[in-house]
């Protein structure tokens, strides 16, 4: 079975973080639908050639965040109901890190607070335009 996930072992980002964030994004974007069955820990570990404990840790964390559900004997699924919402919320940490990084960079360039805010507002207006609004 092929998988939509990829990991880069040479990256300085821990493998479990790479996989966890990808799965969250896939659920938040609807690439994985509520109720969809996920590969078993063993199958995904083999598919990606990574340690099975790494995959198990990702599943455990996503389960704690309400993104996926695991029922003994049946396997793991994208959570129904709140699954997508949980994933969107769980992506909040990712968003915060990305935005903090961007702001630190532009501050280093010597930009004023007001100008940064103006740019952020412009970009929000652009990407959250009604035509692009998905949800």
């Amino acid at each position, binding site marked *: 079975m092929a998988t939509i996930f990829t990991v880069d*072992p*040479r*990256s*300085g*980002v*821990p*493998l*479990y*973080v790479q996989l966890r964030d990808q799965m969250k994004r896939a659920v938040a974007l609807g690439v994985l639908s509520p109720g969809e069955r996920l590969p078993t*820990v*063993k199958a995904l*570990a*083999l598919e990606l*050639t*990574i*340690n*099975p*404990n*790494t995959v198990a840790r990702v599943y455990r964390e996503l389960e704690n965040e309400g993104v996926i559900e695991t029922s003994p004997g049946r396997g793991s699924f994208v959570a129904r109901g709140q699954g997508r919402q949980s994933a969107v919320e769980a992506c909040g940490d990712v968003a915060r890190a990305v935005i903090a990084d961007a702001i*630190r*960079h532009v501050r*280093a360039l*010597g930009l004023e607070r007001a100008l940064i805010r103006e740019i952020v507002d412009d970009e929000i207006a652009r990407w959250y335009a009604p035509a692009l609004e998905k949800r």
Partner: protein
Amino acid sequence: MKTEAVAVTGLVKRYGKSVAVADLTLAIPDGAIWGLLGPNGAGKTTTFRCLLGLVQPNAGEITFWGRSYSYRIFTDVAYVPEQSTLYEWMRGREYLEFTRRAHPSYDSSLARTLLDRFDLDPNKRVRELSKGERTALMVVMAFARHPRLLILDEPTSGLDPIHQRHVLDLVVESAATGATVLFSSHQITHIERAADRVSILKNGRLLLNESVDSLKERQKVIEATFEREVPPLNGVARDPRIARVDRMGKVLRLHVHDRVHEIVHELERMSPTSITVIDCNLEDIFMDAIAVGAPHPSG
């Protein structure tokens, strides 16, 4: 508590005056994939040979699944040595036949699949095999037995990238079905991919012993740029979490081993024009550990 597949306590091995392994203590849980990294001469092969009873340690205790070394345990352990120990005149199929007779757990159909996967001709004599093919034959002999513990010393040496990946797949698959794997490799990416934990050895001493993910989470390089020269660091440079300080004119680079955010915070008070936190991969962490060389408390 889960039993440990392998527990090594205070292992010492000397050859004359030189110390190959100095007071090594390791506890490898059942089902783990454990990577051993170190420059040549770090003591990896000697450690493996001590585990297997091929050399007699000067001190220390080794247990497998809580019991001391015995014939029974030996049947559960498979070893792939770094240097081929195969007789030049024997054929691959003869080696597999020996393995089959010696080990009731030998799986003939798996052996056939693996021969295929590694493009090995079992009718060839060892002398006709390349270095990589010899490694592959030893890998097939080891994995076809479904051992509970695999000790693999550079199990991808001489193999092409595709066959290297096949070895890693076997390692992951064995661990997924409950086996324990202890392997050394100069291919740091292999350890990064497959290992739960990595031990870094130098001159027979353990420098680091931790999960790969937690090392990557903990160790970062903080780069700060200042308007003029880097100002004096005062207390910051003496922080034990900072392993190395590089100053290059306006640029300051700190190799930080823990609590990155706190140190970023301290640096921010010195009003740099920019601060960037750089992730470190296992190669960076390895190079750093080897360069510093000071023993590190295990994590």
